[in-house]
């Protein structure tokens, strides 16, 4: 993961961010950080601000300040008792410098010292192969209902490419999968294009089904290489998520949805996890679940070459 925590380029500016006069400082406690977030020291600048999230550019990577409702992520920083609207406290371009667990920006001080580290647990499928097919049908129907309410290019113009990508993964054609993945990168209207969200979900699913199968590992590696090579074709925020996915890192909600499906739990529990995942963004969550579903279809146990 490309987190560059060192104050390398402009130590004067980064080490001594100018205080903005006339605005009060606010101290916020960080309750949890993703496992890729440097705990003690990093330096970055506010890249983009939203009501419930604020991205900090840190080298090639983004660290994301989030409210507890957002769920954990590998590079997320969860704020305890966060302001209602982060846009009032962070301005694009602000420096944010963390030293010894205390990060300072012109208007906010963040205390990392009590933050716990969120780290996803490694899980393997416990669903008997005989129950895969009914679960796939249930998930497909569930997602189709969701996509009728809010659709994206993944259910429209990009559906064929997404389907072909799934088929290439099933056939373990790494080069073909890489080619199709590159085509999907950046495809879709929004902040994180739907094609990218699909790819993130696909990677999350594939990672859980590698089964130490060298052919699958090679296919997945080809996909990662393609994503890393194509990140310049998509907006910075989405590029960050693609890089994470290429390295096998995903957000909590997506992993919960994946693991719920793969564990031998009642379907209502799977639905609850999928609903939570769908709540991410406008269509991002649903598009990622489409990718996850694609992976589950592609590497169904009966297709395993191991």
């Amino acid at each position, binding site marked *: *993961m*490309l987190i*560059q*925590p*060192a*104050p*390398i*380029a*402009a*130590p*004067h*500016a980064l080490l001594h961010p100018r205080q903005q006069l006339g605005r009060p400082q606010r101290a916020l406690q960080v309750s949890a950080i993703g*496992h*890729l977030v*440097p*705990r*003690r*020291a*990093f330096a970055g*600048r*506010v890249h*983009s*601000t*939203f*009501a419930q999230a604020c*991205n900090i*550019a840190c080298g090639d990577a983004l660290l994301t300040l989030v409210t507890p409702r957002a769920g954990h992520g590998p590079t997320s920083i969860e704020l305890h008792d966060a302001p209602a609207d982060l*846009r009032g406290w962070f301005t*694009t*371009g602000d420096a944010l410098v963390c030293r010894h667990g205390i990060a300072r920006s012109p208007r906010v001080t963040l205390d990392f010292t009590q933050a716990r580290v969120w780290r996803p647990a490694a899980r393997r499928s416990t669903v008997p192969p005989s129950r895969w097919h009914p679960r796939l049908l249930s998930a497909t129907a569930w997602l189709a209902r969701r996509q009728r309410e*809010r659709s*994206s*290019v993944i259910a429209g113009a990009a559906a064929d490419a997404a389907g072909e990508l799934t088929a290439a993964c099933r056939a373990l054609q790494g080069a073909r999968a890489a080619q199709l993945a590159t*085509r*999907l*990168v*950046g*495809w*879709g*209207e*929004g*902040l994180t*294009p739907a*094609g990218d969200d699909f790819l993130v979900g696909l990677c999350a699913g594939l990672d859980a089904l590698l089964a*130490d199968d060298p052919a699958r590992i090679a296919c997945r*590696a080809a996909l*990662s*290489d393609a994503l*890393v*090579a194509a990140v*310049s*074709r*998509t*907006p*910075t925020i989405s590029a960050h998520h693609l890089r994470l996915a290429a*390295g*096998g890192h995903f957000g909590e909600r997506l992993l919960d949805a994946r693991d719920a499906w793969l564990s031998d739990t009642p379907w209502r529990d799977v639905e609850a996890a999928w609903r939570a995942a769908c709540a991410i*963004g*406008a*269509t991002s969550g649903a598009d990622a679940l489409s990718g996850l579903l694609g992976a589950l279809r592609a590497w169904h146990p009966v297709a395993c070459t191991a």
Partner: protein
Amino acid sequence: MAPRRLHGVIMATTRFRTFRNLYKDSVTLMQLAQRLRERDGIAQASCLMATPANLAQLEQADLSIDVAPSPNDLLVVVRGEPADCEAALDAADALLQANDTTAHSGGAAFSLPLTSVALGVAQAPDADLALISVPGDYAGAEAMKALALGLHVMLFSDNVPIAEERAIKTVARDKGLLVMGPDCGTAIVNGVPLGFANVVRRGDIGLVAASGTGLQEVTCRIHHLGGGVSQALGTGGRDLKEEIGGITMLQGVAALAADAATRVIVLISKPPAPDIARRIEAAAAQAGKPVVVHFLGASAQALRAPLVAATSLRHAADLAVALARGDGARVTAPAPAAADLTQVDQRCAAMAPTQQAVRALFTGGTFCYEAQLAFNARGLPCKSNAPTTASQPFDGRYDGHVLLDLGDDDYTRGRPHPMIDPSVRDALVRAQGADAQVAIILFDVVLGYGSHADPAHSLAAALRDAQTQARAQGRTLLAIGHVCGTDGDPQDKAGQLRTLQEAGALIVGSNIEAALLAAHGAARRATPL
């Protein structure tokens, strides 16, 4: 689509507007496009991020535009009557700029205002060093611009032609400026870590090194021994070649000699060209302070005071700290602890007859080189993708002892360095579990700024997987490694050590100890009990 309110199809035109670094979610953009399509005189409208994939879609929809925006630009394209298109774009502008187009969306991104070194200097007039990390084709020109502005240069970029390197360094020397690099990944200047560097105590030992991980190993060891670093300067890997003449190392020696805060100087490099070595030793002898010299793999030769020869990276640090404390230079070369040797003997004794080979998977190039020297010294044949003069080039076949530098171009093309993204190494570690030849896996873990936030986590998992696979086939593996880092590094060194030890790895205090233990194990396996 049949535009109900389009006045005249013949007059239809395509107009667009880009909004730099403006982010909206897809539903907001689709709703906006729908509102634009409902306007009089508009036949088609699309609002999307200007990615290549989306631009291709626009072209298919006959909404192609003749500029090349960035993927971070939001693009609004409308097709209709000219005057109505302009009005629609104005309306889109107003809607997009409103903070609450929807309750959950809307964000503005920071656009880096600094697009040149000169602009940076204008904003930070006190700056005296430029760190340049651009593709090699452009790095030389950027370095020259920085030098013209009176800045020292750290040139992170590689692939700079050697003639260009010489030109840059000559200009810098004439101006009294220092160029660290090209391909310089590590330095600590005035206590500020640059690139891959560790959090070390400030002190009175100054270093000049043509080796990034070598510099990290020595500075970490100095810190561990309670010493401190005044400056740690990188030169780039080619500085001591004939073509460059050791310009930066000679400048570094002169700078540290003149630096009142530096009491002891340490020089680290792979073997320089003989003439360059003589010039550097002559300059170092004039420094007026003790100088520890470690040219990895150079034939042992007597150095006269104030020069002291070290036999390994760890030895260089041990000597430097002793000299800084006035303890003299009677520091013996490091050797593995008896308890570690016993453990290696016991683990090797329990191995299957097929298990003869060491597979070393390094993220640090100098660690790989140092380990090969340990194998060479014991007469153990080995292969490497970055071979010493006594090693064989790696031919892609995992047969016998193989020591790999995974930071080499062969393994980093199109992907981050393994210190940043350890997945390539993790995969190779796992693969060793299936190889009946493998007895010992030798590895390094490099902490500090720039490195992966938790490299031990995935490596420990890979080691466990390899061990599990080997055990399933009636074998047991021995993993030996060392962690290059300090207790001040962002990754929590104690936790990293614990994670690796819990995975069954034998962790020692330096690369040379790990390499000597692996070589000892290899020799044991070559002579069955």
